């Protein structure tokens, strides 16, 4: 074990194919920041970034400086990456397997937030936890159901009763009289 590995070891059994290189991702991120800086600068031009008599620097003054710096730094970073390569030792940003794992959390998470709009936060959380445990964690149904019911119940009493912080509720809570 060298000092360079602060995170948990990668699972060695599955061959992990590189999907995106660190270099590509570095450049993509810097480009995104460049675009953002252009958007902000355009807005600052609309707002004005000069001196307004009696008011001092105009509204767009500070964001203009900030966006210019962000653009310059991102540009410099692209040059640096092109000349010296990406920063860390790992040339791979994410492997296919790794990306799959990230999506396996991110997509359910998006669905969960969509579900909150329709069935309220407690029911959505229950489904999310139970399904996540069963599908991703391959836990057994009874255990998943138990956690999926217990956690939202605990949260319900904590927020609605104990701390009096109302959270989004849906048809289930309405049916129960809340």
């Amino acid at each position, binding site marked *: 074990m060298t000092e360079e590995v602060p995170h948990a070891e990668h699972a060695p059994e599955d061959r992990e194919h590189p999907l995106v290189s660190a270099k590509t991702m570095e450049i993509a991120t810097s480009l995104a920041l460049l675009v953002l800086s252009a958007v902000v600068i355009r*807005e600052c031009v609309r707002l004005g970034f000069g001196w307004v008599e009696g008011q001092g620097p105009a509204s767009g003054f500070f964001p203009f400086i900030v966006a210019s710096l962000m653009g310059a730094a991102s540009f410099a970073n692209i040059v640096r990456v092109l000349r010296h390569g990406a920063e860390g030792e790992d040339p791979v940003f994410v492997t296919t397997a790794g990306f799959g794992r990230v999506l396996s*959390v991110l997509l359910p998470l998006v669905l969960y937030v969509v579900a909150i709009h329709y069935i309220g936060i407690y029911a959505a959380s229950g489904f999310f936890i139970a399904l996540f445990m069963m599908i991703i964690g391959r836990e057994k149904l009874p255990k998943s159901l138990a956690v999926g019911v217990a956690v939202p119940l605990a949260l319900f009493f904590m927020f609605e009763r104990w701390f009096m912080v109302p959270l989004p509720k849906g048809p289930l809570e309405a049916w129960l009289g809340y």
Partner: protein
Amino acid sequence: MEDIASLMHGFSVALTPYNLMLMGIGIVLGVIIGVLPGLGGANGVAILLPLTFTMPPTSAIIMLSCIYWGALFGGAITSILFNIPGEPWSVATTFDGHPMAREGRSEEALTAAFTSSFIGALVAVIMITFLAPLVAKFALQFGPVEFFAVFFLTFASFIGMSRGTPFKVVAAMCLGFALGAVGLDKMTGTLRMTFGHPELLSGFDFLIAVIGLFGIGEILCSIEDGLSFKGNTGKLHFRKVLDTWKKLPSYWATSIRSCLVGCWMGITPGGATPASFMAYGLAKRFSRNRNNFGKGEIEGVIAPETAAHAAGTSALLPMLTLGIPGSPTAAVLLGGLMIWGLQPGPMLFIEQHDFVWGLIASMYLGNVVGLLIVLTCVPLFAAILRVPFPIIAPIILVVCAIGAYTVHNSMFDVWMMLGFGVVGYVFNKLKYPLAPLVLAIVLGDKAEEAFRQALLGSQGSLSIFYSNWLVSSIMTLGLILLFWPMFGWLRERLIGPTDPVSQAGKSA
């Protein structure tokens, strides 16, 4: 001696059964947060902030700051036992802490880590006790020029103390400033960068950013690594604790050095993470057992833990006295102060005497309580990590979503949290620093206001920032820090890389 009297008064405020109970709850919650991946000091406190709205402010901040102490303690447990830094500032602790655990010396490593954390925090609290009232008194005379100089120093030190490329620090920081500028411009009343979306009127709340960047981003990173916990069992016998305590005094030089590094990095917001690396590096350079570093050297645990705790604690000094937090967690606490209707800054020491001294007294008590709890409950906390990740992960995500929702009771914030989560994941992997980003969102408005007011006063002349000795010296210090990476780069060009520690630290 006025301070001592104030402190004693503070103890009388903090030492009520109710507050002591909150301290215990806070520490336990904090350690759990510190142990769990995806929950850290900053987003843990952010998520729990709404729960304290109904409490009296002093009790609320006692509980929240205790969560922070707990998180600082908790990071060490996972670093040593599982080689997983629960918090970024305990990455340096894994270097020697985990090898010690694998040699079967986990009890020694844990005791050393907790004790040095405690000592680091204690030194920082003592410093706050005596320095904070002075700074506050001094800062009463600050105008916009002086405040801008301090803001400048704050952000310049992020650039100067960064371990990676300075470009990323600048980019992340400016992104934060740009996000902070979205919404109503308070000085002129014009709308900026809302692009016709009413949701953006009030701008980006940094609490949402904190929950997304640190919480969701961290979970995504952990899941990508295919997190599997395999580690050593956590046990701590009192005999071992005593044995280790007998050894610790001989490392006094490392402790003092790390305390100094930590206090300095906490006040000028380098933060706990760089402080821990710097202290580790210094300890390695000066130690007689230099070659044993990385293989299980107790000094390699003492140094980063002392510095991280000293930095984490002293980050509260500028937060209380100037209203300028030294770390993301301090920023969240500052957000709490404002929600409870307290205006952080020098006036706090005059107007909210009970609150300030109650908080400072609670720092002493909180750390004593914390040390006792972590020393006695290690097995319990280590057991949390045996709960399979697929059970813990969705619960953490649910808690993050609820935390984001409760900030403004708005679903838009929950979506925003998801967006920040993805940004956090990418930035984390590319080593863009998140702390300057968050602090820029928090402080952007204030820094801008100070800058514009200063320039308005001088009719646009930049010479105002060199108009008196105080501003000049702060600005000069800031400029030195700003161009610090360039000095390093020049030195490397001239005499080649000489610094093995920063080489090791770069990857982490």
